[in-house]
């Protein structure tokens, strides 16, 4: 589902990723870990084409991402749900509208949108906050809204960048539970985190990113 072959990425001549190759299978739930600044976010950005690789090839859900034309990029992104490290919630829209936006982009009928968003709000147990604006929510609640927005359109791939940021253990476990559910419904999930506790004992594949390359691969 996600395939990197010999991918390198430079920022102004500084190498961030060098000769990276790995494959994430369809239906897998995998982790990418590494210290701050290792290039986890950059690696995810390459997947949804917010950055282009300087060398190598990236294939996501059948799209050769490095070669996509500008006009095609939105169609790749509709297959990829993204939980951004910096959330990217719209503060002039309610919780409901923030989540619904992902479906409006997919040109879904208003009635269908209402039903789908309500269901997802129940899944994340935030139905009672649907008319609230994001700035009035706690960090954990905002995090769940971002996850809800990423999964509501049922993407084939879900990318989560540091989805438990600085949340307490209980909330983190809660959120990881959401990812397992999404994964169980067939979505391929890739989670980037520096927090070992998240994958410890999960039995899932973990890619260790360090010093511009994948240092090792192990089972968490």
């Amino acid at each position: 589902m996600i395939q990197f072959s010999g991918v390198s990425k430079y920022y102004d001549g500084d190498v961030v990723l060098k000769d990276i190759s790995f494959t994430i299978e369809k239906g897998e739930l995998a982790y990418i870990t590494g210290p701050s600044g290792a290039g986890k976010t950059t690696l995810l950005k390459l997947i949804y084409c917010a950055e282009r690789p300087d060398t190598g090839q990236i294939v996501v859900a059948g799209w050769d991402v490095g070669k996509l034309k500008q006009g095609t990029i939105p169609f790749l992104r509709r297959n990829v749900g993204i939980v951004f490290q910096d959330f990217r919630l719209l503060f002039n829209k309610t919780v409901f509208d923030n989540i619904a936006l992902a479906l409006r982009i997919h040109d879904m009928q208003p009635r269908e949108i209402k039903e789908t968003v309500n269901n997802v709000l129940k899944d994340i147990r935030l139905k009672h906050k649907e008319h609230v604006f994001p700035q009035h929510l706690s960090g954990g609640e905002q995090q769940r809204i971002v996850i809800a927005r990423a999964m509501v359109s049922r993407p084939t791939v879900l990318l989560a960048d540091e989805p438990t940021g600085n949340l307490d253990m209980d909330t983190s476990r809660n959120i990881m539970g959401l990812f397992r559910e999404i994964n169980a419904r067939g979505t391929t999930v890739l989670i980037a985190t520096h927090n070992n506790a998240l994958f410890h004992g999960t039995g899932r594949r973990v890619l260790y990113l360090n010093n511009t390359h994948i240092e090792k691969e192990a089972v968490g």
Partner: protein
Amino acid sequence: MSTLIYALQTAMKSIWNEKWINLLTVLSVSIGLLILSSFVTVTLNVDSALKRWAKGFGMVVYLDEDLTGKAENELKKLFLQDPDILEVRYISKEQAVRELRLSLGENASILDELDENPLPSSFELKLKRELLKPAVVKKKAEQISRLKGVEEVQYGEKWLSSLNTLSTILKTSAIFLGCAILVAIVFITYNTIKIFFYRRKDEIETLKLLGATRTFIRLPFLIEGLFIGIAGGLISAVALFGIHSMISFKGVEILPSIRTLMVAPPLQAYILIVLVGAVMSLTGSFIAVGRIRY
């Protein structure tokens, strides 16, 4: 379809939330369109007055003193066959005196002093309207004056050329002013939409990352620009109608024939104003949104 509805909702929300800057833009656009349309109306009116005036333009062909009736008839036949000539009127010596008498009025008695009729007989020719250009008329006059039996050809040379110059000046300045105003309308809308676009830059960035197409991103801005143009057009159409009605009502007191003299803008002209406003504003907002890169 849902995209269009959502874009409409977004545009309407933005129009309402930013009502003051939108109102200002709409008014600027409508003032521009009003100046443009009034100027065009004035130009049309002046031009039609000039045309009406030119219609009365004639060329007088004075004949040789001793020309026979037969020769006169031949000349007349020649003129009638000429496709450039619309109307031919023969004025005999006697008629010429009668007309002169009429125009002299109470001073006509001075004609009684003369024992012989000094006036030549003549033809008055009306040329086709398309030919009423100074150079063309001059050429025609020279041609006719070379004909046998023709003494002299007279026409209002100066008058015709100043009429023509005036008409040309008016039309050229209408075109220049028109273009300047059209550009101004594009720019006014461009400016406003650009401001809105920058204010929502972060939101647009997020939309792109969520997989929004260019159309999805652009549409609300284009709709808002279109709204500005149509609203501006409607306001200026109403204003133009008001001004025109006022002039033709008040003007009657000063110049009773004003109603028949004045050319009223037809319904199509009002529709055109709205259309021009719409197209120009849409162009402005299109440029403002610019190329969207992912």
